[in-house]
């Protein structure tokens, strides 16, 4: 089977599963709503202040919400030995990883689409820079979180207390990506400087780690 065929069939299976059960998306939605509400109680900024801190708040909320979904990515494949099925099947490992990462990417993007208007309303946000730039920043930043998150969810599968292991592995590695997302978003919101450097950093991060994940995923999948 070709790379695309395996990716497509696994991705459509995951989307169908999620569409019927709505496990991850409901948990993430409610969780991120809680985060927005709690942040809005914890900080009560003016419009000027909120421009400076909103970039950080949004991405931290997304990061926490994404971990909820990422933790379920591979754990659900343990039931009924689905993962063992993948291991013995002749399909290569890389497209399986790609499908899982794309699925998580779609779920997290859906959450962001719901959270962003809430943030705008709660924090009285209005971008002073070019607001359309937020879209590529969101796509690149989400991929940066999700690609390594999917990979490390597979790594933490064979550990004690794996739910906590994923953030422990993911957060330190994601620091440059997080710096990129937060600073790019803040640059656009405050309109004081260009976000170009940070977008370039995000692109570099995405390329390097996508390649690394695809190369090493088979090793992780076989490590039983």
């Amino acid at each position, binding site marked *: 089977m070709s790379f695309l065929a395996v990716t497509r069939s696994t991705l459509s299976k995951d989307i169908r599963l999620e569409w019927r059960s709505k496990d991850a998306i409901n948990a993430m939605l409610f969780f991120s709503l809680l985060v927005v509400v709690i942040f809005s109680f914890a900080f009560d900024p003016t419009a000027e202040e909120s421009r400076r801190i909103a970039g950080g708040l949004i991405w931290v909320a997304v990061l926490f919400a994404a971990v909820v979904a990422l933790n379920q990515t591979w754990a659900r494949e343990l039931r009924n030995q689905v993962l063992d099925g993948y291991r013995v099947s002749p399909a290569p490992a890389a497209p399986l990883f790609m499908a899982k990462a794309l699925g998580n990417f779609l779920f997290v993007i859906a959450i962001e689409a719901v959270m962003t208007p809430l943030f705008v309303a709660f924090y009285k946000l209005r971008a002073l820079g070019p607001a359309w730039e937020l879209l590529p920043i969101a796509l690149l930043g989400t991929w940066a979180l999700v690609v*390594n998150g999917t*990979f*490390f969810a597979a*790594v*933490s599968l*064979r*550990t*004690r*207390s794996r739910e906590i*292991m994923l953030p*422990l*592995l993911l*957060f*330190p*590695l994601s*620091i*440059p*990506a997080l*710096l*990129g997302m937060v*600073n790019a978003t803040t640059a656009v919101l405050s309109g004081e400087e260009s976000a170009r*450097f*940070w977008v370039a*950093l995000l692109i*570099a*991060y995405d390329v*390097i*780690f996508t390649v*690394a994940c695809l190369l*090493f995923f088979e*090793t*992780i999948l076989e*490590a*039983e």
Partner: protein
Amino acid sequence: MKRGITALAVITGLMLSFALYEALVVAPTERTMGDVQRIFYYHVPSAWTAFLLFLINFVCSVIFLIRRNTKADILALVAAEVGVVFCTVVLVTGPIWARPVWGIWWAPGDIRLTTTLVLWLIYVSYLVLRRFSTSGQTAVVAAVVATFGALDVPLVYFSIWFFRTQHPSPVIGDGGSLDPRMWVVLLINWAAFLCLAGLASWTRYLLEVAKREVEEAEALESLYEGSR
């Protein structure tokens, strides 16, 4: 083997006391910072030693991924453990120096400070993973994570490079304004710290080898018990 370790331990002890004497008494006092600057002789050699050990960890992890050599795995583990200890020394001595000189404990935008902190976080998470792993293939998984950590370092560096840096930069390297006598003391200290790191790594290596032999013997024994 045992005699080698004893010899190295004696040499390390002598070197460390000599280096301490050099750093506290022989080295000239810095003109503007005064005696506080002497922490530099502990801070910088620890940092170099930690970075060297993290490099060893990366090289051993790659070797392990290619050759599946157990020795490389144990060396990677030992280098990460000892490296984290030296990195902790760097992160503790840094703020002690920074408070009187910069007036602040910590400069969040500074490139070397933050890179070192992120390195420390990455290798601590590597060690936690090794401790928590229930898989029989901990070594493989850990080697992959170590490789990812090494890939992350240049990105961390560039991301923080974009902020302005506060660290005293060209003391070492181009146009170094460091007094030649200070250089000598610094290098003596580094040699002493390398001996200490070597000693710690060597004993830890032997301990890990012994631990694995015991585990293997226990597994064999339970197999034998089970088959009877």
